[in-house]
């Protein structure tokens, strides 16, 4: 590790995010887009690029692109013009990719991120539509590469940021913001592990104060938020080390290897650098009317920022809690469905962000796979709110809810957590505890007031956490003062 002072170096980062649009069929063919199907069972004639086939544009992809453009306040082009990007690779059946060059459907826009409690605007240069390539598998056979064209033709929205990002952290914040936007707009499921959202990072360094950009490298193959941060930080350090040691940064593409946490140059690709773009002759430029754009803009679903603020005012939760509850559309919906039905939404926020999230993390899954339903959470929270279930008791119940199919009531009963409401029971319990703890009783009578807590603890223990704390306090006071 270099011991030089990295603080004199400024990092400049731009992200290119490829978002798979959640359509039923592909962008230029009517093959289905279902993930995980047997190889080449979702590659139609058009996707295979057979002689004589032709592309026809899926109208939903235009609508989704416009939605995104409206959400980031970008200019929407009045025409959708496609272009051919020419290169040879087995996962690109036609030998060209239908993409957009000079007239991207979405023009300049901006996305606000929050980092260290500061807000920062990140410019979006453009977002355009294109078709995805298939997959090449190089490890299946010894002497061959295996080509699966299921993914070929899946619609992609490529979102290109200005080089406005200055750290790996900012990059992650931007990526998360894009993720929440695309999920809230319902244009993609944003699942990085399945490749619905992919990120390439362009990274360069320069001395603070310099206006020229340094040579940049493009980092590919980053498929999680965690790896984005690691890959970028690694590359920044690598570049600093190279330059500090007298070398120069080559403009190249590097692959991120997550197992070794390093980037290495990609072997010169079969892709020619000269893509020879020209307008796609098989697709007539599509007119996009102002009316169409206005209608989409007026019907945008509630965006994460708006929802965040609304949660604070509607449900009395903190900004911080609201931010976290809006980290995904699903989580925000989960919370809101519950918050509307319980007495204290703030409690709902606390329990969802606390114990439920802990369970989700423990089982490495997301809210959509939660083993605890709305109904269960509502029941649980009702019991907490009317104090028939104590805090520790609720913690136990929620864990058991995850593990079993039983209802809240069933678990409470099974664990004997039904509140010992009966004063008589509590009195008897206290009597027993006093008898079993004569020393502490003596000390308390002599004036050691702190031991009150000890007795409370003992009662809670004896009642397995189910005794009503208020009642315990009252009865204990009475008993101990006798």
């Amino acid at each position, binding site marked *: 590790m270099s011991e030089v002072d990295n603080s004199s170096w400024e990092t400049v980062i731009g992200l290119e995010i490829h978002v798979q649009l959640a359509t*039923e069929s592909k962008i230029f063919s009517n093959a289905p887009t279902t993930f995980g199907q047997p190889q080449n069972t979702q590659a139609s004639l058009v996707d295979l690029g057979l002689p004589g086939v032709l592309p026809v544009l899926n109208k939903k992809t235009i609508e989704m692109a416009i939605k995104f453009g409206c959400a980031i306040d970008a200019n929407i082009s009045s025409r959708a013009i496609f272009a051919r990007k020419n290169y040879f690779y*087995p996962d690109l059946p036609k030998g060209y990719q239908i993409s957009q060059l000079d007239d991207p459907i979405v023009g300049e826009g901006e996305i606000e991120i929050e980092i260290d409690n500061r807000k920062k605007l990140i410019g979006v240069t453009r977002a355009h539509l294109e078709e995805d390539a298939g997959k090449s598998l190089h490890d299946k056979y010894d002497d061959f590469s295996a080509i699966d064209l299921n993914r070929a033709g899946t619609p992609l929205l490529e979102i290109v940021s200005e080089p406005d990002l200055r750290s790996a952290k900012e990059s992650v914040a931007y990526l998360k913001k894009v993720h929440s936007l695309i999920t809230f707009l319902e244009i993609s499921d944003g699942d990085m592990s399945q490749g619905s959202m992919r990120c390439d990072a362009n990274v360069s360094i320069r001395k603070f104060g310099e206006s020229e950009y340094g040579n940049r490298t493009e980092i590919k193959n980053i498929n999680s938020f965690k790896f984005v941060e690691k890959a970028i930080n690694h590359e920044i350090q690598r570049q600093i080390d190279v330059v500090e040691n007298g070398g120069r940064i080559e403009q190249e593409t590097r692959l991120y290897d997550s197992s070794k946490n390093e980037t290495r140059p990609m072997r010169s690709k079969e892709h020619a650098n000269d893509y020879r773009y020209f307008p796609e002759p098989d697709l007539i430029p599509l007119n996009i009317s102002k009316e169409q754009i206005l209608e989409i803009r007026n019907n945008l679903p509630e965006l994460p920022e708006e929802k965040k603020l609304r949660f604070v005012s509607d449900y009395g939760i903190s900004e911080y809690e609201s931010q976290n509850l809006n980290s995904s559309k699903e989580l925000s919906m989960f919370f809101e469905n519950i918050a509307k039905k319980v007495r204290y939404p703030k409690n709902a926020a606390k329990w969802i962000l606390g114990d439920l999230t802990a369970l989700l993390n423990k089982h490495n899954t997301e809210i959509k796979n939660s083993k605890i339903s709305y109904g269960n959470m509502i029941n649980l929270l009702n019991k907490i709110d009317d104090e028939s279930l104590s805090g520790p008791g609720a913690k136990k119940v929620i864990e058991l809810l995850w593990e079993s199919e039983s209802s809240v009531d069933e678990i409470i009963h099974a664990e004997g957590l039904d509140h010992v409401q009966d004063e008589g029971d509590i009195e008897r319990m206290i009597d027993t505890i006093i008898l079993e703890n004569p020393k502490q009783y003596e000390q308390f009578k002599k004036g050691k007031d702190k031991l009150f807590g000890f007795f409370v603890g003992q009662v809670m223990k004896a009642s397995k956490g189910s005794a009503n704390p208020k009642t315990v306090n009252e009865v204990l006071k009475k008993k101990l003062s006798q």
Partner: protein
Amino acid sequence: MKISEETLNNISALSKIKIDDDIKPKLIEDLEAIMAMVDEMNKIDTDKVEPMSHPIGDAQNLREDISDKNIDRDAFQKHAPKTDDGFYLTPKVIEQND
């Protein structure tokens, strides 16, 4: 417009067509003759003219987002040069690319 052998090598690499050395001279001769004819375009000033990429302007054929699950992989692969287990096979590519 002269076309050097280097240029020919570049464009044949871009278009993935192997050209044997012995035919290069004649090929260059032919290509130069064609480009000389093409250069006639320079005789007219087109500065103020818009390029036209499609002869018709108003077809706006769009497709509804409905998928057709009737994909007969076996029929499509029946006469494919080299397949196995539904995959198309090519010589092994060394680097990773996705």
